[in-house]
């Protein structure tokens, strides 16, 4: 049965190549976007940590910054 699934009447090479190519691209794209995200997230944490208390409280007054800080671990 496994042999039939791999061979597919002689079309296995084409079918499996198409599926493997598709999912290889999925993994590569996911990895690239994830790396970009992690890079920006790290940068945000570093920059926020470098702010003094006055600057930090001003930054926190912006709702999106609060959202980023509160959700950063969930993303």
């Amino acid at each position: 049965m496994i042999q039939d699934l791999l061979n597919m009447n002689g079309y296995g090479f084409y079918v499996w190549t198409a599926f493997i190519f598709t999912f290889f691209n999925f993994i590569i794209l996911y990895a690239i976007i994830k790396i970009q995200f992690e890079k920006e997230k790290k940068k945000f944490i570093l920059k926020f940590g470098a702010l003094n208390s006055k600057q930090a409280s001003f930054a926190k007054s912006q709702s999106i910054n609060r959202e980023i800080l509160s959700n950063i671990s969930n993303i």
Partner: protein
Amino acid sequence: MFKYFEPNKIFSITSRAPKYVLTLFIIVLSIGLIESLIFSPEDYKQSHSVRIMYVHVPAAWITLGIFSSISILSLIGFIFKIQNFFLISKSLAPSGFIFNIIALVTGSIWGKPTWGTWWAWDARITSMLILALFYLLYLLAWRIYQDKERIYKVTTIITIFGIINIPIIKYSVDWWNTLHQPASINILSKSSIHSSMLIPLIIMTAAFALFSLLIFLMKYNTELIKIKNKGLDRI
């Protein structure tokens, strides 16, 4: 109405959504793979090579859908000066481009056993290649230009020219004699594809749509944090 599309309003949703979308994507993809590789029947003419349809067709549908969305959002964003629409468009482009490449390559792989050739300059394939070039131009424009206004103008022009190609892709099989068969699935009339093949195709399309949603959400969150990083420099 457009105020609901402001980044700070939707970030609370987009930041939490990826993990749920990823879980759903894995579930739907697993069902789709079992259906398309094991349970769906082989074609009486094309035998098992027909299974390539389950990755080729959804990829082609989604790349067309994404480019159309990018074009509409860019145009509305440009007319009404809504920056977030450009951000959404930018975040949609990577998955649209990858699906375009997948459609071209898997189509080429399917072409060899079906038509006896890896590539032919037929209307459908050529117009899909042109779409890939528009995607590439669009993505490059975001990298090349620094000035926001210039980026918005250039990307909108690219998408306006690019969208002319969408009906050409769709109707190329009707307007010209091509190696591609006419559409088997029609929303307005009865589809000529049997349900045993239609169901796996729909499931795989749903899985691919979830993947592009996942990539969009991750990219959108990245872009928002990138903007906020620049904002922190100015404090």
